[in-house]
């Protein structure tokens, strides 16, 4: 199959609201259920931004489906006034794939947590990426199991002390961005619960991308892992610890925007752009549309590298064929080649004989 180069334009089959029909508001996307997260939980913000952006997508409410696994984050569908399915732990990608395959006109959203997606659901996660259904995946990464009351998760830092690891966890954490890229993901991004504007923009880009769109959202669990991402989300430290990715722009960051990332052979380094040694021209320029994954992988690796800022934004956005379209093509192709299925003929196919 040939791959197209960019995903700048969306050619989704998801049906749009016809012109003239009154547009919806955030309220229309709020269900009648009480939200049941701890006060102060980062999930609230993600819910609010999702509800706010929905009207802008132009999709009739009935064509939107939210599918989740199990976890605090996975209660999300109950609060959206759309179709929803709160399934079982780790399996949302499979059920969402079935929903999308059966009806490609639906706008399908997968809501998952770091445990749900990367622990029990790790396999479905990576296979979902390589299948490239036109799904939107929001991973609420709070680096902890919230619902089961605070065990370490696959994104918890090594040495994490939790109820299940009183002396510290032993595993190297996963980097969800790297894993998604290695699995062939076509749209990979990261955003923050505490940056509503950025979050909305990224959710919208994810929606507009045709293919599986994956967003890792740094989310604060103020009960079991409070402040795990504060250095990236709070005003005082955010600018120095994050670099916002913009297509075609050099990697500049810092409160004074005087720092940047340069490539030295295969080794990245942080440089000053105002002390004379380097200018922004020496910096790596982001290209989210390139097919080659070397840059995206490199950016992903930054968050595992001490002293490097964490990239926030869209790492990669390329256009590959979607599973559901390829399947639909096979069906159309087969119908054209051998004609619409004729059940009577099928049952009577092969060698038959008649007794009278």
């Amino acid at each position, binding site marked *: 199959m040939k791959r197209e180069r960019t995903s700048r334009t969306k050619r989704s089959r998801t049906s749009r609201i016809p012109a003239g029909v009154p547009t919806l508001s955030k309220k229309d996307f709020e269900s009648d259920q009480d939200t049941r997260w701890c006060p102060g939980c980062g999930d609230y913000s993600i819910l609010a931004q999702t509800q706010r952006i929905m009207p802008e997508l132009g999709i009739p409410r009935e064509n939107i489906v939210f599918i989740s696994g199990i976890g605090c984050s996975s209660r999300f569908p109950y609060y959206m006034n759309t179709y929803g399915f709160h399934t079982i732990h780790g399996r949302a990608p*499979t059920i969402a794939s079935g929903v999308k395959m059966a*009806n490609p006109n639906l706008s399908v959203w997968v809501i998952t947590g770091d445990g749900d997606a990367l622990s029990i659901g790790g396999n479905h996660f990576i296979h979902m990426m390589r299948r490239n259904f036109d799904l939107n995946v929001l991973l609420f990464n709070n680096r902890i199991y919230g619902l089961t009351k605070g065990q370490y998760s696959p994104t918890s830092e090594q040495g994490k002390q939790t109820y299940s690891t009183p002396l510290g966890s032993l595993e190297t954490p996963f980097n969800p961005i790297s894993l998604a890229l290695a699995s062939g993901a076509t749209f990979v991004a990261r955003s923050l619960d505490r940056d509503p504007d950025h979050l909305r923009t990224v959710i919208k880009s994810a929606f507009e991308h045709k293919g599986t769109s994956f967003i890792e959202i740094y989310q604060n669990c103020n009960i079991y892992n409070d402040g795990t991402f504060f250095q990236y989300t709070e005003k005082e430290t955010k600018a120095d610890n994050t670099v916002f990715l913009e297509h075609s722009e050099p990697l500049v960051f810092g409160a004074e925007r005087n720092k940047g990332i340069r490539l030295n052979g295969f080794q990245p380094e942080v440089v000053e752009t105002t002390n004379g040694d380097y200018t922004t021209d020496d910096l790596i320029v982001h290209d989210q549309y390139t097919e080659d994954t070397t840059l995206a992988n490199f950016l992903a690796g930054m968050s595992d590298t001490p002293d490097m800022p964490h990239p926030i934004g869209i790492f990669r956005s390329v256009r590959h064929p979607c599973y559901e379209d390829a399947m639909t093509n096979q069906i159309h192709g087969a119908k054209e080649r051998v004609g619409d299925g004729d059940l009577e003929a099928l049952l009577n196919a092969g060698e038959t004989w008649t007794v009278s």
Partner: protein
Amino acid sequence: MRKPVEQIEEATILFAGDSGDGSQTIGTQMTETSALIGNDVATLPDYPAEIRAPAGSLAGVSGFQLHFSSEQIHTPGDLCDVLVAMNPAALKVHLHKLKPNGILIVNVDNFARRSLRLAGYEDNPLEDGTVAKYQVFSVELTRLTRKALENTDLTTREIDRCKNFFALGMILWLYNRSMEYTMKWVKTKFATKPQYIEANILALRAGNIYCEATEQFAVSYDVKPAAFEPGTYRNIEGNMATVLGLIAASHQSGLPLVYGSYPITPASDILHGLAQYRNFGVITMQMEDEIAAVGVAIGAAFSGSLGVTGSSGPGLALKSEAINLAMIAELPLVVCNIQRAGPSTGMPTKTEQSDLLQMFYGRNGESPIPIVAPSRPFDCFETVYEACRIAVKYRTPVIFLSDLYIGMGAEPWRIPKLSELPEIKADFAGREYAHGNGFEPYQRDPETLARPWAKPGTPELEHRIGGLEKSDITGHVSYDAENHEKMVEIRAEKVARIANEIPPTEVFGAQEGDVLLLGWGGTYGAVRTAVEHCVEDGLSIAHVHLRHLNPFPNDLADILNRFKKVLIPELNRGQLLKLVRSTYLIDAIGFNKVQGQPFHVYELESKIDEILKELGHF
């Protein structure tokens, strides 16, 4: 000179050889030829466990057993009239299946010292008395085939591959069958390789002429057509009948079929079969594992398709959590389990019926799920169709519990007219379901207790479902004690009510009396044959074969009580037995075999005799 022809009622032939010897091919040819002239046929392939075990080894033996008759038959036969053994290993593995004085055809060219040793023979069995009680025909199959094909352009290796057709030529002669069907088949099969067409036909003819010309067989046999109900027939394997049943259900209901699966013996053929029918809109998805496979089927069901998944025992274990989700979410889903011999990986190429209780109870919590089981290869069509009908009508997962024996076995099938197929109505909820207090996803149909199927895309019916307990009617998450008990009861009652639709149970043989054999699944053929024999002998014996295992038919209690003894033959350690004993509190007894093999008719007959003796008969 044509030798005398003897009329016989039936015959059983076992073709066996190395995996590469083509026994399956010639077995199928003989089957089709017999079916086309109107015999009733039943077949059973026996593949080796390994893909391609070392040539000539015992592990590499591939067999194909064919039973054909001028009467109705139900099994591929207990013992054989003819054994075609292409090498010593085939002889070693299958000789015990040949009737005393049966015809044994061996390729004597393959009985060199090395081959004998590979098969574990110290001495040549053709010479040391091993085969003394049979009619032995030692044919130089290799040499004769090479001779017949010496003027072709083929390599020796290619020529040697044709020797199965030489053997087929002999068998066709022996049973007075025309070579026409096979010639036609060879022409289609090798359409792009004309040299193979010629070669195989030459070999076929050579085998045929060899019998005609030499003094090999003193007589040949003729098996007349059987009396079949009027209709159009074809020969069909169980798994293929399952494929057609699913497509038919999709077609008749108007629900697109989405089949999620992960390959596993012996269920893979359903995936392969369905994958060929994209022009019927059939979507097959080979997923990363069994959980993902059932997951896509559940997603598809939620979206308004006919979601189906298929596997075998170990795969079913993995799917159980997700099936439970479909159960509590009350979504239609069809789950095919083509059973094989367990436990664990067990013996993947052997048959067994030992997943019945797993299907009943292999999920946490109270999780009632309807179960239907086909009884014979062609019955897979109707039974899987029935599974789809129940799933759609009652919005519930349904288990279609087949097994390797019927999945891979084949027999003639009277092809139904479309008008004969029961209705499957996918009555999706529409806008009219949205009332003042919004849509109520657990408001039920008063008769079936099915909840509405409101698929995404329907305006005003937006709602949320999931695996947490839900409040009656509103479908909100609920931890309420009474509500939970109520929902548990409703889900049980919904399944129980299916019994009201089950047609009256057919009791074959005595309508009351001494012994009732109660069977299910792939034991049908053997049990029915044994009971037929008993009935012919005037004994007071009956046979009931259950298609519906959950719920049981309403009339079953009454039927069971009409007999002194209830005997439940199963290829497990007594699973239906446990259910019947606890449900009906009768002292039913089991007859069990756990050998990875189907019952032989004689085994059942002697068990019946034993019981009759205990009852004071004879």
